[in-house]
């Protein structure tokens, strides 16, 4: 555990943000790595047949990239005890060299003993693409913070 993680931690503490660029290359890579070969993630034809505006990123790619805000901060990904999110808006990835950026940020939502819950935001083109994204980490040591002090 990095000592800096626990020091001065309060509800509302912001974690270092992260911007990730989603391109068609990233979608192809994620499809192969995850074995999710749903064609809405690589074929304009199937995406529009499904009523989508275009090829969209895997929800789990967005969710997985978002969790980096927490695992970068805590260092050891094995400390994550729960993680949940809703896929509120598809991330449409254009077929070009630029792709689309997704900005991830996180802040401490709750502290209970050694358990810290982080609320994560994922924004693309000014719109939230994940809803109610929360990750809980067990820091292994009780987190002293103002709410518990007399």
């Amino acid at each position, binding site marked *: 555990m990095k000592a800096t993680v626990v020091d001065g931690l309060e509800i509302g503490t912001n974690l270092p943000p992260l911007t*990730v660029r989603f391109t068609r290359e*990233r979608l192809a*890579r*994620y499809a*192969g*790595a*995850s*074995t*999710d070969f*749903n*064609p*809405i993630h690589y074929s304009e034809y*199937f995406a*529009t*047949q*499904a*009523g989508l505006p275009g090829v969209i990123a*895997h*929800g*789990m*790619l967005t*969710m*997985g*990239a978002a*969790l*980096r805000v927490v*695992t*970068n901060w805590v*260092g*050891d*990904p*094995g400390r*994550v*005890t*729960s*993680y*949940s*999110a*809703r*896929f509120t808006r*598809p991330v449409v990835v254009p077929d070009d060299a630029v792709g689309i950026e997704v900005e991830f940020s996180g802040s401490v939502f709750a502290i209970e003993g050694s358990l810290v819950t982080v609320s994560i935001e994922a924004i693309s083109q000014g719109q939230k693409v994940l*809803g109610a994204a929360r990750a809980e980490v067990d820091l292994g040591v009780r987190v002293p913070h103002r709410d518990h002090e007399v």
Partner: protein
Amino acid sequence: MAITEAHAGRRYSLGDPYHVSAAKIAEFATALGDDNPRYRGESPVAPPTFAAVISAQAWNQMFADPELELSLERIVHGDQRFTFFRPLRAGDALIATATIDRVRIRAGSELISATVEIAGRDAEPICTAQATFYHAREAAA
């Protein structure tokens, strides 16, 4: 016949365990653009959302169940929750069992809630993955 509320309770499981390798963990971390050193080297842990890869072993069986008449390209992931009892690691041999918890029929679509239990050797509970999928019944005009 297509999927109905009566399919709640139906279970899917692969007979053979999924063997987690260091190479697959590194490949998955690279796909996320994640250079965390804990995902590399001799005995890595997996990124927490790697649990979706294991879950997919069971989800894909459900999606391919001929009785449900689902089309993969008309399925969209609605929400996802993971509860971890311990991290997934290289060397794990995992069994994923999916259970359909609930089916809700909407105009033109079905909402399918399913829970995957990921277990290790001797049925050690490792992760519970709950998901909702939207299935559009007909291709868009």
